[in-house]
């Protein structure tokens, strides 16, 4: 059982979206795992909760696919860390996944209707 506090109003990530977020974060430049997790949380205004175990697994998966590269380096506060960067292939994937996601979100939005009616 992952340790997750139920009173949290953070939302667990949808299946498959973590890859997209990681790629998006890495467009901004090389980051280590903890930095990526932190960025996802901050950029989503603390809405998203990232299971760190899943994050590292996802990173490994993307690395295996060749969408991101990894290199050991030193963090700003002099800690040894593994830094991830986007590859050319990853950049192309990001574009594709982004447009896919937008189409999906729009479609779902159409079905759910305008926000006011949500009560």
């Amino acid at each position: 059982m992952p340790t997750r506090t139920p009173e949290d109003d953070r939302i667990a990530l949808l299946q498959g979206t973590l890859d997209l977020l990681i790629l998006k974060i890495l467009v901004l430049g090389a980051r280590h795992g903890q930095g990526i997790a932190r960025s996802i949380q901050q950029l989503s205004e603390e809405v998203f909760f990232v299971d760190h175990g899943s994050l590292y697994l996802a990173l490994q998966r993307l690395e295996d696919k060749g969408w991101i590269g990894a290199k050991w380096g030193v963090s700003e506060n002099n800690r040894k860390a593994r830094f991830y960067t986007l590859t050319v292939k990853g950049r192309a994937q990001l574009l594709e996944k982004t447009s896919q996601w937008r189409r999906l979100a729009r479609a779902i939005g159409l079905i759910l209707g305008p926000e006011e009616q949500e009560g």
Partner: protein
Amino acid sequence: MFWRRKKRSTADFAEEIRSHIELEADELKAASVTDADARMAARKAFGNLTAAHERFYERGRTVWFHDLLQDVRYGLRTMRQNSGFTAAAVLTLALGMGANTAIFSLIDAVLLRSLPVNDPASLYFLNNAGGRDVGGSPPYPCFERFRSLAKSFTGIAAYAPNDFGIRIDGPIEQVDGARVSGNYYDVLGVAPFAGRLLTDRDDQLDPPVAVISYGFWQRRFGGRSEAIGATFTSDGTLNGSRFTIVGITPKDFHGLAPGQHEDVTMPITIAGPQLLHSTNSWFFRSVARIRPGVTAAQARAEIDPIFQAFMNEFPPSKDARRDYFNHMELSPASHGLDLLRKRFSRPLWALMAVVGLVLLIGCANITNLLLARAATREKEFAVRVAIGAGRIRLFRQVLVETGLLFAAGAAAGGAVAWWAARGLIAFFAGGARPILLDIHWDWRVVGFTAALSLLATLVFGAAPLVRAMRTDPHAAMKDGGRTTQSRIGSGQFLVAFQVALSMILLAGAALFLRTLGNLYAMGAGFHADQVGLILIHLPDNTYHEASARIALWDRMLPAVRSLPGVRSASLSRMTPLDGNGRGVRFEAAGYQAQSDQDRSINLNTVSEGYFSTLGTPLLEGRDFTESDREGTPNVALLNESARRHFFSGRDPIGTVVKLVGRPLYRIVGVVQDAKQADLRKEAVPFVYVPVRQPIDSGAWLTLSIRTSGDPQPLIATVQKRLRTLGPDIHIVRTDTLARQIDESLLEERLISTLAAAFGALALVLSAVGLYGVLAYSVARRTSEIGIRMALGAMPVQVTWSVLRQTLWLVAIGLAAGVPASMFLAKLVENLFYGVTPTDILTQAVAAALLAAVALVASYLPARRAGRIDPLAALRYE
């Protein structure tokens, strides 16, 4: 990606996770928390660290395969640790599987394997058939009509197995072979190993050519290439013209008669124009390849009218037409001639059933052992379940362990089978006329063993598997690993099952042994011991005139009789159970035959002293003498059956009878019946004529020598003496009468020897099984027995309670086994002789033997139970 990226190590991943935690802690510290708290919080934020590591580890691996390897390693370790258990189980399986594989490879060789020819399934024998029998091919002129008229076949070939006396250089040698039509190899689709095979043109015999087998080429010519082009003469063929060897057949092709190796094959036209033009001679087989798309029924419908027209044109007797030449039949030729299959199919399937039962008994033992071991490992499983092992994973592990055990058993069984199969081949090839089997270890035999092993694993490994699945950590831990009664129950059931199976095997073995004993002990009408046999052929080229042959036989008998150690010697065309037969028509005044069958009598040509040499008593009249020869009146002897059949008790002495419609013979005596063709069958009517007044050519006679000691060494001396009597005396083979009888009882000896061996094995396995179950149950009940004894039970009572358990198991086993053995024996009733499947004595002896062995096996654990020291037992608890 077409190169393999080097896999990232788990250590590297762990390093990254560590750095994550530190980075996280750094951030929290910046938010002014204490060092320790920050680390803790960072850890907490990460979630399940172990799970993350595990998931990384499992990523990209074929996890099940990895686990399997782990299971195999663990299984092998367990096997090594329990070496006693492993050895017992593997040995049991090796014997069981080995016996099964050996018998199966024998069945494969004798019954199942197709001829090594092209598309064997489309080959058929074309046989004439009637109410009484299915025969061979119709006469040669009819065969030629099939060839020219029938459209259903792509080819029809003639084939006649034969043995020949050939002379390559030096003395005449006896070889097995065949006479075939020129298209024979073409129809079969056999390609030459070297040189060429026969063709239609070779039927012209201009020049005469022959083909030899690979084996003969190796044996006789040492595999030298000069063999092709070598020449030989074949006795009595083409006035001694030389045949040229033109080719060698493939290594695995031995002809169409399984069990025989046809070494020399010649054109069928050497049979001579008389035989080939004869409209009433049946001497060969027709083998045909059916055209694709034509069914056997269609082909039969096409050739039957041709056959009917032929038979109407050249009619045999009414009886013969009805009994043998009524219509045509097509029988599959994919397995060759069925002589060997007819003889051995029932005995072999019976043996397969026997070894199957032995394997069952062995497997029951192993199940018991596995169950006992599973009980002792209950705690181990309970602990593993408690710390999170999946039940499927446990199940798989037990499956792997059991599978390993059975695989090891199968592998060891392969070695046993190899050794056993060699013994079986030798058993078949033992006589003077060996049956040569080619046991192949191809995918079928290996597949059979593998399937057997897999099946046994699943069936007999199932009980321990189910136990592993049921493991309940709470109960097992609380219980301290004690078993409940129900588990011993399944073991006991298996023991009763084993007793029942053993009973079937023992009763079967006893029935077969008694059959063999009865066949040997019965009055066959002759005494087989101390008789040597030498089959002599006087070649036609040297001894063309009948007078020359008789002169030689005249010289031979006194010469042999004068040798030291020879008590008597005689000549005869046939000897008992040599497989020969010769039926002729018998006509006597005052006898009205009802049918052809009725007037036929068996003919043997014998010299004076034949009956005394074999020990067949003369009942009335006189034996032949040396002066019963040309120029004196023809005389003949009858046997008892002939007297009964043709004279219905009247005195036949002095009656003149006609044989084969030819010369008249006067009956001068009657001898006792002696078995000729089959020990199991009643004696048949026989007439005997003197060698010096023969009806047949008299070029082939067997010299029988009764000796005062072992005939075997004397045979060589006699052979040496024979060769000095004249040129070109061809000694075809030597044997002893006792061995000849053994050979005729090959099926019976095979089945009774193996049934007895397997019966003994079953008995041992059951005894071991019983011992194991009782010893285990006594060990488990130590504390219970201790309490009982503390409460006043006497050691004798305790011992008796264990023995009583045995008696119950044996009683249950026998209650099932006795009827089952009677039922099964009933199915193979005609394999027995002089004993019925329900024979009470046999069943009683088998049951008593089984009960005695069971009691001996259970005595040790029973005594141990009686000697349990209550104090020690309770303290142990």
